[in-house]
């Protein structure tokens, strides 16, 4: 795919298959695989926000976890331009090497409740990376944590409190402060606002935007919510059953859709405008089981434009117009849009 200068992360043919075991008495045997991530390729430039959007079970969260190496990939390559080490393939690192990489790639979790250890104070939580990497101690650590808390809009006086004293939005700020502690190059945001109330979502989205500008951060922004993705991302990738079906610059993608699934997704999203007259493209049936995906194009059983070719031939992700990639045989022939 694209490999211009300024690429920070290049993911090629990334795969993550989870085995399904048959249950024996002592030995388990894999009888099938859930193809959670099935050949995903994309690049992220320095300072860019790439939105990764899809419905539950499409593999977007797994993609994030595999890039971060919280999970070991089944195959593929993840080239990362590390600040300290130069180009490294994250997919091939061992545990000790990964520890160094995590100084430069961090994660913001979806659930602000389970991602903070309830038995630690804010100072211990936010200071954990600084402590573990032996960067700061004592008073210096205290000052840095205070600085980080101010940065995310929390009062430093809260440092000795435990997470249970905070609301969901405040906890998410704590998680963000922790992710920022080591000055990472890239942050993977895994549905960071989907567990929050409407009025709190905006605060967190704005905070993420501000921090990105201030520290030239690169985000992989994972979400099921098209509006959130559109708001924050420079480019958007749409995932369906473990594959990327479309990827393009945000405005390009939202204005000239090239894949029937993206079209259905966009048409399904409710618009907060009672006067909006929008085309509804109801999808038939259910998302296929990633352990037994359909033949050919995975979307063909639900696609209203399906042709015979779609049932046998898997469409590759190809560049239909410059910078706009879609995995549909008939991208150019169809006139899609909402």
């Amino acid at each position, binding site marked *: 795919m694209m490999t211009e200068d300024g690429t920070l992360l290049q993911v090629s043919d990334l795969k993550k298959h989870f085995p399904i075991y048959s249950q024996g008495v002592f030995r388990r045997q894999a009888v099938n695989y859930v193809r959670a991530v099935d050949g995903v390729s994309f690049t992220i430039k320095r300072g860019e926000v790439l939105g990764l959007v899809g419905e539950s079970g499409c593999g977007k969260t797994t993609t994030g976890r595999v890039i971060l190496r919280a999970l070991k990939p089944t195959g593929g390559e993840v080239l990362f331009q590390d600040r300290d080490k130069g180009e490294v393939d994250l997919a091939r690192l061992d545990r000790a090497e990964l520890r160094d990489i995590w100084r430069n790639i961090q994660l913001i979790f979806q659930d602000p409740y389970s991602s903070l250890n309830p038995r630690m104070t804010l100072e211990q939580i936010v200071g954990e990376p600084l402590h573990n990497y032996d960067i700061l101690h004592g008073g210096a650590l205290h000052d840095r944590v205070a600085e980080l808390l101010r940065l995310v809009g929390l009062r430093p006086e809260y440092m000795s409190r435990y997470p249970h004293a905070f609301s969901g939005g405040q906890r998410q700020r704590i998680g963000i402060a922790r992710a920022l502690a080591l000055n990472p190059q890239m942050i993977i945001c895994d549905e960071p606002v989907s567990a929050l109330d409407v009025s709190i979502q905006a*605060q967190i989205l704005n905070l993420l935007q501000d921090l990105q500008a201030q520290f030239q951060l690169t985000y992989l922004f994972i979400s099921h919510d*098209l*509006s959130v993705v*559109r*708001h924050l991302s420079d480019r958007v990738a749409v995932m369906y059953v473990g594959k990327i079906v479309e990827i393009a610059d945000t405005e390009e993608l939202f204005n000239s859709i090239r894949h029937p699934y993206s079209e259905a997704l966009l048409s399904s999203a409710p618009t907060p405008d*009672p006067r909006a007259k929008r085309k509804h493209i109801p999808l038939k049936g259910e998302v296929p089981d990633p352990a037994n995906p359909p033949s050919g194009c995975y979307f063909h059983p639900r696609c209203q434009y399906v042709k015979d070719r779609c049932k046998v031939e898997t469409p590759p992700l190809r560049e239909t117009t410059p910078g706009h990639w879609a995995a549909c045989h008939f991208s150019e022939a169809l006139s899609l849009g909402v």
Partner: protein
Amino acid sequence: MQNVLLEVKDLHVNFFLTEGTVRAVNGVSFEIERGKTLGVVGESGCGKSVTARAILNMVRPPGRILSGEINYYGYSDAPVNLIALDPEGSEIRRIRWGEIAMIFQEPMTSLSPVHTIGNQMTEAICLHLNMPKDEALRYSIELLERVGLPQPGRLLNHYRHELSGGMRQRVMIAMALSCKPKLLIADEPTTAVDVTTQAQVLNLMRDLQQEFGMAILYITHDLGVVAEMADKVVVMYLGEEVEGADVDTIYYNPAHPYTRALLRSIPRHDIRLDRLETIEGNVPDPTNIPKGCAFHPRCHYYVPAQCVHPPYQQIGDGHWVRCTRAHEIGQQSSQTEQVL
């Protein structure tokens, strides 16, 4: 009053907890018209679900309905006050199933794990419609077909865990429709499902509403869904209504600072926004609701002297607002811009 199906008058529901008393619903009044959809919007803890439960007299301890009236005009012109009925009595039971049906956010909990879908459906139908078993079975299949489930005959032999979230919600809708209710209360029915499934369920509900002519009380936090579904909207904040009007007014001419801020704080997939406006602070703890106007600590328009606890007053045709400064704010906005 001809068209009113259900009228909620000055409803108060408290939850008595060891940590203190939560005024979950604090003087809420609204009307639902026959065949129309009323959307109730609010964030978590605003009391919208409790209101829905209070309508069916289903508030359980530590919650208690303190006062208010819920008048149901479905039988005749003489209203029945649902709150006055015995919550376990036969009349409310008949109403709960036959007149007012309810579907919930998580259909998983409303379906029994140990009985097949068919068993549960036919049993309920036999019981409430006095149908013989084979007829009930045929009717179940018809209903499942109507809500767009494929192969309904086979589906009857499935258990709840074998269905996807969207399918479960359809089963719930099918069961809710079996007695052709005059009012369907939908409490966040699509919050746990994906957007494409949500679109399917919303389409289905709209179609069924046309077909059966039932009214819908749609409870959600999602301003997009409300815009698509509702004819009228009530916005709630901390147990109170802050604004109520027809859907167009709410979105194009909102008068309450909370409604305005909420609308400007949501990201959009249909237009590009540079920056979201935010509502400062957090939703206050419901045991400790701010004095005076409950929204004042987060309000841009707060003026200490003016914002004592405001009444819920009418400022336009069917447009009600709980804000003492609504008139000024409304003028400001009509001069400057439409909100979006």
